[in-house]
């Protein structure tokens, strides 16, 4: 009879123990939809490619422009985006939202592609104007029965993290090949924006 080597048995026992202890949290009840509200908000910005492209582009552009734009733009965007969301929740209409979102990806992508370096105030204003469209469109899409506060927190945090992704990618700007790569990434974002603009016009 073949015997299993003891060391192998010990190793596999350890693996088995880790797997058995690696259990998911059991949500017995969702109290007023709160946990689900946060997760819905967290997932929402990531689920829409139009939103993702613009958020990442803000981070990329900030990284290209360097300090203080690298942190000012990602601070300005969520705050003005929330203002746009608040306008949407209060029922203030905003015409051409889908065009505005597509245009944000086109222009922010183009800014990264051409390494456009406007004064800080103008860069912040461009980002802020587009943020209103994103907030108005996405900030108000609360699934029924969930907490508005937790949804909002998740939505804002996820948006900020997408900026962080853009900034992290943008750190390659210090190298020559990285600068070219960023320009290429800007071109990809702009093309994505054009696709969404085409979809908005066709709709």
């Amino acid at each position, binding site marked *: 009879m073949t015997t299993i080597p*003891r*060391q192998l*048995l*010990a190793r596999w*026992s350890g693996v*088995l*123990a880790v797997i*058995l*202890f690696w259990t998911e949290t*059991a949500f*017995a*009840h969702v109290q*007023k*939809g*709160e946990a689900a*509200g946060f997760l819905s908000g967290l997932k929402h910005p990531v689920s829409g490619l139009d939103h993702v492209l613009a958020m990442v582009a803000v981070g990329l552009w900030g990284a290209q422009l360097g300090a203080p734009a690298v*942190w000012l733009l*990602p*601070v300005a965007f*969520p*705050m003005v*985006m*929330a*203002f746009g*969301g*608040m*306008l*949407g*929740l*209060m029922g203030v209409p905003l015409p051409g939202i889908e065009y505005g979102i597509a245009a944000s990806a086109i222009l922010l992508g183009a800014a990264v592609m051409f390494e456009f370096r406007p004064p800080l105030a103008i860069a912040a204003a461009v980002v802020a104007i587009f943020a209103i469209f994103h907030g108005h469109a996405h*900030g*108000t899409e*609360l699934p029924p029965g*969930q*907490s*508005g*506060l*937790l*949804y*909002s*927190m998740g*939505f*804002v*945090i996820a948006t*900020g993290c997408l900026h962080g992704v853009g900034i992290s990618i943008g750190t390659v700007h210090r190298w020559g090949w990285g600068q070219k790569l960023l320009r290429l990434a800007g071109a990809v974002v702009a093309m994505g924006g054009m696709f969404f603009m085409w979809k908005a016009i066709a709709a």
Partner: protein
Amino acid sequence: MKLTQNQTRIPLYAAVLFVCIMSPMVAEAHLNSTGMGPIYDGLMHFLMSPEDLVPVLALALLSGLRGATFGRRILFVLPAAWLGGGLFGLAASASNGSAMVSAMWFLLLGGLLAADARLSLRVTSALAALLGLYHGYLNGAGMGLNFSSAAVLLGLIFSVFVFIALAAAFVVQLQASWTRIAVRVAGSWIFASGLLLMGWAVRGLHGLKSP
């Protein structure tokens, strides 16, 4: 290869571990069925209530940015005011918090944090006292005067105290400029959440728990 005595016992240990893992306990989904008591109710209420937790976090981060003196002052002023407000609220009739006022706290403290406002120690203490009195009152009024409510309040105050101590101390020791900027970014997120909360309050879909 000769095995040591410990190694020869590995299958036995593995079997014992396996039996332990395979002996499931009843999952107690609710705190009131675990028998942990009102102190833990209070502890968990604060930690699970973002409308209470987030303004306290903002204030702790703000005082942490200003230094250890501010952090130490807030550490005692806020829980003391919370306790005072809570005791006052216990004796009062039930009162529901306004989502609009909660949004205002988010906007005020998140905005001050994002702007890295250089408030004086006196103003920061006054903000802490107001925040503590308001939220403590709401917590107390929500519980009502009964046998266990004082213990719930104590658990809550303890939770506030530990939370401020950890958050403020974490920020006080930050030296690199980018870490302080990251704290201010957190302030902008709190401000942004406050703006959206204000919108939800107008719509009546804020989803805040009763205090």
